């Protein structure tokens, strides 16, 4: 049995599309998750790439689900386009496509820092860990434990971290114990990060309870920002629904 995600990725590669794996599949690769039932991709939004994506979707006999249609005008606003595959090698498998995510840089910048995973004979480009975490800062409960776990795993695994690794942890770590640990291991880098993330001062002073509260407040603010970001997009989706009914 060829795995549905490989069938989808093979179709994207055969058609020379420019895409980045993200969402649950990327979390599996980074060790933050064990299972997911669908696939999410960030795609370059230009006419040529969208034509190639459409060709891949036709190979997969993918049908659009819900709204909006796969058009640059919607992708550029931040909408997601949803499909369900009907081909025998990926039947029932869902595909979500986006080009712009809140808090993430433009596609070409994310492409420059992509990770390549070789599975059999194919190379799968995926979002870097840093960009995957930015994309996971949503309004949903389920994404936040994932962010915490992705960083915990990365922190535990890297015995000789680069400065860039440490800066990522300092920006994104959501575990009070690890932040306090980092305060003793990397005090100078943490102090330098204070203007961008003031709660780190609580890690430097090892005030765990207050740090935990500050992390909760930080999450609440991001989730509030994500709801605000999606408000006009959801209103547009509502208008599409009503226009059709």
């Amino acid at each position: 049995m060829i795995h549905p995600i490989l069938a989808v990725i093979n179709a994207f590669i055969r058609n020379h599309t420019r895409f980045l794996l993200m969402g649950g599949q990327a979390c599996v690769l980074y060790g933050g998750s064990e299972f997911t039932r669908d696939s999410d991709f960030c795609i370059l939004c230009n006419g040529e790439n969208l034509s190639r994506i459409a060709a891949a979707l036709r190979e997969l006999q993918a049908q659009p689900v819900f709204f909006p249609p796969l058009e640059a005008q919607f992708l550029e606003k931040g909408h997601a386009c949803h499909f369900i595959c009907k081909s025998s090698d990926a039947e029932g498998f869902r595909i979500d496509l986006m080009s712009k995510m809140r808090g993430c840089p433009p596609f070409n910048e994310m492409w420059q820092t992509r990770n390549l995973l070789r599975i059999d004979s194919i190379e799968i480009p995926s979002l870097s860990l840093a960009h995957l975490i930015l994309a996971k800062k949503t309004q949903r409960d389920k994404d936040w434990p994932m962010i915490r776990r992705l960083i915990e795993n990365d922190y535990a695994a890297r015995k000789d971290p680069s400065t860039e690794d440490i800066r990522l942890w300092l920006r994104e770590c959501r575990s009070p114990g690890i932040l306090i640990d980092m305060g003793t291991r990397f005090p100078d880098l943490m102090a330098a990060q204070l203007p961008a993330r003031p709660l780190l001062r609580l890690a430097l002073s090892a005030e765990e309870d207050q740090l935990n509260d500050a992390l909760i407040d930080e999450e609440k603010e991001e989730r509030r920002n994500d709801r605000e970001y999606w408000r006009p997009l959801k209103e547009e989706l509502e208008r599409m629904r009503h226009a059709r009914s």
Partner: protein
Amino acid sequence: MRVPDCLDSEEAAWYALTPQERFFQYTRLLEFYLKAGGSLAPQRDSQSPFDFPEYYEQKSPQTGNSPPPAIAGP
């Protein structure tokens, strides 16, 4: 804090795998899930921006059951 404290043994074992090994294990898990009758339909998520009834349907509100249209450039 010692580094291993942040992971339980199951998580540590999972993370100790290479990305390729994790991907292989994931494919086996999905294969089992499908053989056991598991569904690929998305679970209802009231916090999702796409939490509209049509999103969870298995047919297209845009084009019925026809394949996706050719895409026009931006």
